[in-house]
């Protein structure tokens, strides 16, 4: 029986600083398809990986403006054109009364879009990921830090990837295979 093709190679660290140093070393060595895992946010590691959070904010801003515009537009269209009601001669476009709802709906859309957009950018929810095959990976949600070199990298060769990871300050280096 042939062994399945490896999904990548992984190194396990006990400290966040060691992970940050390893990411910098891997980027310097030219690895492009790599992912780091930590039990808490590690801002330095995110910077080293070139992560950008700005799209989350842009999604929120766009959705917020759209939400407020749709809420105000609905109230305006329905009250002025579709079903105007003359209440004591008051203007049908009662903007002071339309604003609270438009504002709340805008904030609602922005907040929901920020949270769902974050999940979407992260590719979540996802049923499975090759990195879960790694030995001891359950500690990535508790107290260990991982650097995962993925097989999608054009220069990925199991032997060279493992050799590179062994040169780092890791407590364990292993190949990840779909079990």
């Amino acid at each position, binding site marked *: 029986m042939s062994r399945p093709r490896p999904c990548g190679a992984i190194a396990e660290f006990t400290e966040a600083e060691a992970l940050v140093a390893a990411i910098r070393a891997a980027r310097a060595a030219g690895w492009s398809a790599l992912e780091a895992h930590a039990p808490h946010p590690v801002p330095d590691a995110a910077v080293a990986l070139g992560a950008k959070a700005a799209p*989350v904010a842009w999604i929120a801003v766009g959705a917020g403006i759209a939400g407020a515009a749709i809420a105000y537009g609905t109230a305006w269209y329905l009250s002025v054109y579709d079903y105007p009601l003359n209440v004591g001669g008051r203007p049908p476009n009662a903007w002071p009364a339309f604003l609270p709802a438009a504002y709340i709906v805008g904030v609602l859309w922005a907040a929901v879009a920020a949270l769902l957009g974050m999940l979407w950018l992260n590719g979540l929810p996802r049923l499975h990921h090759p990195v879960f095959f790694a030995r001891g990976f359950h500690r990535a949600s508790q107290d260990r830090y991982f650097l995962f070199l993925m097989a999608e990298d054009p220069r990925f060769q199991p032997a060279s990837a493992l050799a590179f990871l062994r040169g780092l300050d890791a407590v364990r280096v292993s190949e990840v295979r779909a079990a």
Partner: protein
Amino acid sequence: MSVSTTPVVAAALRPGAWGFRLGLLLALAGVAVLAAAVAALLVLGIGIWGNNMPHVWGFDLIAYAWWIGIANAASLFAAVLVLRRHGLRTAVNRFAEAVALAAVLAAALYPILHLGRPWLFHWTIAYPATTGLWPQFGSPLVWDFWGIMAHVIVTALFWYVGLIPDLATLRDRAAMQGRLGLARAYGLFALGWRGSVVHWHRHQAAYRLVAALVLPLLLSAQTVVALEFATTLVPAWHQARLPVHMVVTGLPSGLGVVLAMAAVLRHALSIERIIDAGDMDVLARLLACAALASGASYAHEILTGMVFEDSATRAAFTARAFGAGAPAYWGAILLSVLLPQLLWRRALRLRAEVVIPVGLLAAAGVWLDRWSLVVGGLLREHLPAHAVAYVPSPAEWALLVGSAALFGAVLLLFGRAIPVVAMFEIRHEESLEDVAEEER
């Protein structure tokens, strides 16, 4: 690593103690009372309540404004902690959000139930109905609908998204213990979180952004409730200061409940090291501060009510503060402004047996204030024959007790099934402390 998150996980994964079971049993009995009260209302109609002219609003709006105040103050507190990256957030953020969520669920019941025909509440949504009718967009009911909707959705999402990484921890811990069914259940809600550093980066950005968005949303949620009062012509309500008054006087209720919860949780779940004496100290002083701010708002109310406003408002205020409504008005000030001032004494604020009653009584005091506003405001009719007192009926008491039980049941289940403090924040905090120490 000085503080382990193990007790937090253990609290979520171990079988329930007798105290928890008893508490849950009582809360579920209360929820049954709530179900009975709601069923009676749906079958018999709103006539089973004590409302009648001139008291068009009674327990329904008192409880609504009160629960919204609790939710509001608790979320406001949580959001400010996230934005300021305050150390206290690791200890209390998660359950402050849970308190807000449970309170907003309790609050959301009332405006629907008080409609008279609650099964038609969807008429407040703008949708192309076969009747060809649309909601009246000039009505505060439309603000109310969106205010509550937004509050429920955003509070729930804010809480859940903050929870995802901790659900992943529980998934992995449960899998390690060989409890695969439980691991799958937690794994489903963890959405496949794998702690990727890039994901963390976006997660934190989104979390902080929503915390910033929660602030204006909350202010609007409480002000919308107050604006509904202020847009009427009832003298005691028709004031521009009412929204600010409701937001500020609501603060002691939410902070009081969070403080009492913190005191209960740290003992019940044996997490005294995670919610430590320093955290309790800051929380208690915060409640005392909020009570002072609330006191300033009352002083302003008395000043405007007695001196600056016209004769109709003056008469209405005098009736609330010195007439038949006086016990509620001054009771509110006693419980939500003066009583929390005890917490300035360090010896008192570090004792759970002081902090729990003071926190809960502050919340009760705010309820009295809402009673004073709703009932006292409507007490004075323009025709003398109408000046009858409002007396709540048993159905209304059942509704109040039931919604409190619903709040309790949600919090108890939350305390059992998921980590009550954000574990990843504790780890993060520690790693930042390590770095700071090395740099010294």
